[in-house]
């Protein structure tokens, strides 16, 4: 699974330009899907037919990643930028970003700031692509870029940019590949534009009209030095979401995940996330409502260029989803 994860996280696809990652995922699932379509906003919907009269179940992972977009190129060829999704200025300084044409930029910071000990604002940062003037600057207003950082596997920990939510994509792909028999009509949604507006999951779910939806995404942890308290730790199993800042999991979905984990002796944790949300928040409000929940992969340093997950949590997420899909 590590090779798959590496391939997914190293693909360049910020929200709104998901073509690259869609092609990578499509190649992975094409041979095992019964049906595959790209819907109007660009989400990839993979259908695996059920053998019985089960439910229509959506498993969703978003394929877009956070990034930056050029807002202005100045006379000297430095590019100002805004964020695509939530980008923390603290993790920007010194980071590198890559544009679609492989141009690499370094993020610099204005030194003449009013208070140097304060967290800078994004508008005090700039991207330096080594240009000497606005005219020879290879990047233009509206060009998106993503953070770059190689994938690292160290012990059971996996470190990379865009674990949010390529790790969810990896879990979905692996689940589909290992899925032998299910009574349910399973729809894997690899959604677009989660980081900006939760748009893809909402519109895809409208098209599918499922009986139940589960988002597979990363969640924060409370296991780092002096961090905000939270009862989720890396390596202690996938987290079954109880609530986050924009949704409360449907109790039936939450209980189903917990029950299957217990039955199969798969470690799991319960998650209450105070800040942040997932596609499930959008999916549960589609049409007349969709019972929705979320299976979270604990992840440190979310929305930084070095997001860290534990391989065992990833594997256990796949096992748990298989348990859910393979029983009636």
């Amino acid at each position, binding site marked *: 699974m590590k090779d798959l994860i590496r391939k997914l996280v190293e693909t360049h696809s910020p*929200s*709104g*330009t998901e*073509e*690259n990652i*869609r*092609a990578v995922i*499509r190649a992975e699932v094409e041979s095992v899907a019964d049906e595959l379509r*790209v*819907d*109007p*906003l*660009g*989400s990839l919907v993979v259908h695996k037919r059920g053998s019985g009269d089960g439910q229509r179940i959506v498993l969703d992972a978003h394929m877009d990643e956070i990034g930056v*977009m*050029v*807002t*202005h190129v*100045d*006379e000297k060829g430095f590019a*100002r930028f*805004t*964020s*695509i999704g939530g980008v923390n200025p603290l993790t920007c300084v010194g980071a590198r970003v890559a544009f679609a044409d492989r141009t690499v930029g370094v993020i610099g910071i204005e030194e003449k700031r009013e208070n140097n000990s304060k967290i800078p604002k994004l*508008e005090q940062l700039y991207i330096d692509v080594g240009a000497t003037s606005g005219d020879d600057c290879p990047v*233009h*207003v*509206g060009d*998106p870029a993503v953070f770059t950082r190689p994938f690292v596997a160290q012990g059971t920990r996996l470190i990379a940019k865009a674990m949010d939510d390529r790790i969810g994509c990896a879990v979905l792909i692996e689940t589909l590949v290992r899925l032998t028999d299910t009574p349910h009509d399973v729809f894997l949604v690899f959604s677009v*534009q989660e980081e*900006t*507006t939760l*748009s*893809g999951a*909402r*519109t*895809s779910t*409208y*098209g599918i009209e499922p009986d139940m939806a589960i988002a597979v995404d990363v969640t924060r942890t409370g296991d780092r030095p002096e961090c905000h308290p939270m009862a989720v730790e890396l390596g202690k199993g996938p987290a079954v979401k109880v609530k986050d800042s924009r949704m409360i999991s449907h109790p039936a979905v939450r209980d189903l995940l917990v029950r299957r984990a217990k039955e199969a002796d798969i470690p799991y944790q319960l998650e209450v996330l105070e800040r942040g949300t997932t596609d499930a928040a959008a999916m549960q409000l589609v049409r007349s409502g969709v019972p929705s929940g979320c299976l979270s992969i604990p992840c440190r340093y979310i929305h930084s260029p070095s997001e860290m997950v534990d391989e065992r949590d990833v594997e256990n997420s796949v096992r748990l989803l298989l348990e859910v899909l393979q029983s009636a």
Partner: protein
Amino acid sequence: MILRELSEATGVSGNEREVRAVVLDAIQKHADEVRVDTMGNVLALKHGADDSDSPTAGHRHIRVMLSAHMDEVGLMVVGYDNDGFLKVRAVGGIDPRLLPGTLLQVGPDHIPGVIGTKPIHLLKEKEGQKVPQIENLVVDIGAKGKDEAQRLAPLGTYAHFVTQFRELGPTVSGKAFDDRAGCAVLVELLRGARFHFDLHAAFTVQEEVGLRGARVAAYAIEPDCAFALEGTIADDIPKDKDISPTTELGKGPAITVMDRSFVADRRLVRLLTDTAEELDIPYQIKQPGIGGTDAGAIHLAREGVPSVTVAVPCRYIHSPVALLSVDDFNNTVRLMRESLSRLTPHTLTRRQ
């Protein structure tokens, strides 16, 4: 210019009646079906031409939505004081720095009013450096006491800016160019020749308070793709730092790739920029991450609608007077017309 009538009509969000009347009058003869929906949106359909010689013939079945919002920002009466002054709140985003001393009209009868302000002679030291908040301002319609004020302007009465439309040579000025500029572009597009596809025009309500009209309009229309037409921020006034502008006057229509409400569909952006390059129509990419438009609601309709926003740059929007370049306006109409003429199902085909 139809922009004159549109601009001088009043239509604070939720009260678009006057603007709707101007729109209906302007498009009635140029559309095959026109209706007003339950929210107050004007939905017009102009069928595609059956032109078998055209390279785009046979693509009549694409459903293209063009939207422009009719509403503008303004104020609403929320209370009175005993002397007959009206207390008001903003409807939509209003900069309180612009309000003291501003002329208004209140209610459907357009009762003249002014936002009360203390003469400079009476200002205490430093008082003049503070910006009064809307909650602390009053509107003076000359009412003698609370009863008369209540009778003339019952609670919930709208108040709107009053600005005469003026042609100043290469530019025009007036109120509510956000989004009467977009409405005027849409009227011009409807007035022109038929396209090869069914054109669904939506003149929407309540954009300024949460993209509300566009949401139901897009649900009803079920388009394959959508273009939101706007009057957008031009902030090309002198600045201390070389880190913007959002758009500049005279540099052509502004195309949105991403704002706070949505990420534009790159295929539609490319259609617009390719068309502009080919025909030498000036255009600019709007500074990403700023503002939001009806496209933010439209792209979420039903199973999703690939969308983009195209705007006429306007200085001083959300204030009593805005200013736009006539060339930018005409180039926006031209860019839209030419781009739409090149739109085929192939435009929306994905390579991956």
